[in-house]
């Protein structure tokens, strides 16, 4: 998955488990950047009576680096507080929830947003209501309107925190089954099992599941080092990642049936580019990676330079990736992946495009804020000729699985070695999904991710 349950420790702690990060120039408001951090993976919509909610004990950050050192220059910090109206009922709601003030809604959550810059904290808003989870036609009869009520305007900033439809699409079943990608499964080695006699369309493993989103829309100039930089100016670029922190000590207070937390907050989860900790970082280092800032990613550089998956593809698909096999065998570092994921793509590599702030190796989603939204977006982003898409930031519908599969398979290596001719398969490999694989689709305006699936109808 993008970063759902990607490391052993965080897979045991869903409320602090970041799943996806998005950063893009808002298509309906081009002067504004939208940042979204998703948490709590793979929510089954009918998962009550204690429906999903953010952790009151978790400190959620959306971090922005605008100087290129892999450390946050601006932090938007979100803290949540849960309130129960009536502790003498087992119900999440005692009747229809028709507004965020409904007395029928028993278990509500509120939050505070704080902007931290140069060590100074400024509370942008507090007591901001989250929407309820989408339960069903009797409990949350007009969910769209409820969710719209939970979009808060704080001066020229908008914020939203609550449940959304999972917008990240991926064929989990095939990828985790030794990468037997359904559209090409007959080409797979199959270990002699002869399991597949014909190819098949992809199956979206995250469809009809929900996540919890923290979304904020901010004027571009509040994020960049300078106002109105041009697209070829490195100061137009920001690096974005999310992190979640917990206090260092947790003690189960058995006498009172609750956890007691103590000590300073320390990072337990982080996410910038999709699939980095999931696919590139080895199992024994994933938990450590989650505790560090992007500035420390030089210690993981070898896993970007020599990704394990690049070596696996020619083995799993015999004869399909001979040039990739040769590249892996040569031991040449994958400077293309390093540029895409760790430094940004500097001037001179792709005509008219750059999203780099310097040479610091740091896994951040780098967005050139001066590149306007595409009128005809391509889900393959930059490798599809659309400079407004991943890896220039990431839009909610970008097909990051296919983009990264193709990049690892060698499609982007000619960016740094023009004599390299990728395998034909490298430009075709995919898990076979598109935005149409997401049943609830996306929204044309903030917060862009679709209405969460309701429990009554899912599963149906």
């Amino acid at each position, binding site marked *: 998955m993008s970063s759902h349950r990607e490391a052993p420790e965080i897979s045991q702690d869903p409320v602090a488990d970041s799943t996806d990060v998005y950063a893009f120039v808002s298509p309906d408001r081009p002067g504004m950047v939208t940042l979204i951090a998703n948490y709590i993976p793979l929510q089954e919509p009918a998962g009550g009576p204690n429906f999903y909610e953010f952790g009151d004990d978790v400190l959620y950050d959306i971090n922005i680096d605008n100087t290129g050192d892999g450390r946050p220059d601006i932090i938007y910090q979100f803290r949540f507080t849960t309130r129960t109206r009536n502790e003498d009922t087992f119900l999440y709601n005692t009747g229809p929830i028709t507004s965020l003030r409904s007395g029928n809604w028993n278990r509500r959550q509120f939050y505070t947003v704080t902007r931290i810059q140069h060590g100074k904290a400024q509370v942008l808003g507090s007591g901001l209501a989250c929407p309820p989870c989408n339960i069903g036609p009797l409990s949350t009869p007009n969910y769209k309107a409820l969710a719209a009520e939970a979009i808060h305007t704080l001066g020229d900033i908008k914020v939203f925190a609550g449940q959304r439809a999972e917008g990240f699409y991926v064929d989990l079943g095939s990828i985790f089954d030794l990468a037997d990608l359904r*559209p090409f499964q007959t080409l797979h080695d199959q270990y002699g099992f002869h399991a597949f006699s014909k190819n098949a369309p992809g199956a979206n493993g995250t469809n009809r599941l929900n996540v919890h989103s923290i979304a904020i829309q901010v004027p571009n100039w509040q994020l960049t080092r300078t106002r109105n930089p041009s697209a070829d100016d490195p100061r137009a670029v920001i690096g974005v990642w999310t992190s979640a922190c917990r206090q260092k000590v947790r*003690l189960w207070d058995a006498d009172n049936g609750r956890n007691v937390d*103590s*000590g300073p907050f320390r990072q337990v989860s982080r996410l910038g580019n999709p699939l980095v900790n999931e696919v590139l970082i080895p199992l024994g280092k994933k938990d450590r990676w989650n505790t560090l800032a992007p500035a420390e990613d030089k210690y993981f550089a070898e896993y970007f330079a020599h990704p394990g998956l690049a070596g696996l593809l020619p083995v799993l698909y015999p004869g399909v990736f001979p040039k990739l096999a040769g590249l892996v065998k040569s031991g040449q570092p994958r400077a293309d992946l390093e540029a895409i994921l760790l430094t940004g793509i500097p001037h001179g590599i792709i005509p008219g495009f750059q999203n780099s702030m310097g040479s610091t190796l740091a896994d951040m989603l780098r967005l050139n804020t001066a590149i306007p939204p595409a009128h005809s977006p391509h889900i393959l982003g930059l490798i599809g000729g659309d400079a407004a898409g991943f890896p220039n930031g990431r839009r909610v519908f970008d097909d990051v699985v296919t983009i990264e599969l193709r990049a690892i398979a060698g499609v982007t290596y000619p960016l740094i070695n023009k004599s390299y001719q990728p395998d034909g398969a490298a430009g075709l490999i995919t898990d076979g999904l598109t*935005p149409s694989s997401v049943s609830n689709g*996306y929204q044309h305006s903030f917060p862009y991710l679709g*209405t969460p699936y309701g429990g009554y109808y899912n599963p149906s």
Partner: protein
Amino acid sequence: MPWDDYLEGSPADAESLAVSQPAMSRRSMLRTTAGAGAASLIAGAALGTAAPAVAAARPAKRARSADSPRPASDEQVVVHVRNARSGEMDVFAGTSQTRLVDPDLAARLVQAAR
């Protein structure tokens, strides 16, 4: 509106814009040109029990890190004896952490835990 094709309720439209992903034969795939220190003991205690023990200990080396001011007196305190032999301990309260080196106190805490 640039994103219309991917919006809620328009899966058919989204499909029309989607990248075609036909099932591939090996031949077609091959011929196509690419386009692109270990914790030793954790002792939890209310301040009322932990504080006297700290007060009774001999002067200890301490280093403090904190995310906020010193905690209020009604907050719980957690002591982590990192190394009983050297007396290295962490004391957690509120959002603070204090590193102590106090072999006597560490020994008494370990004894109390047995």
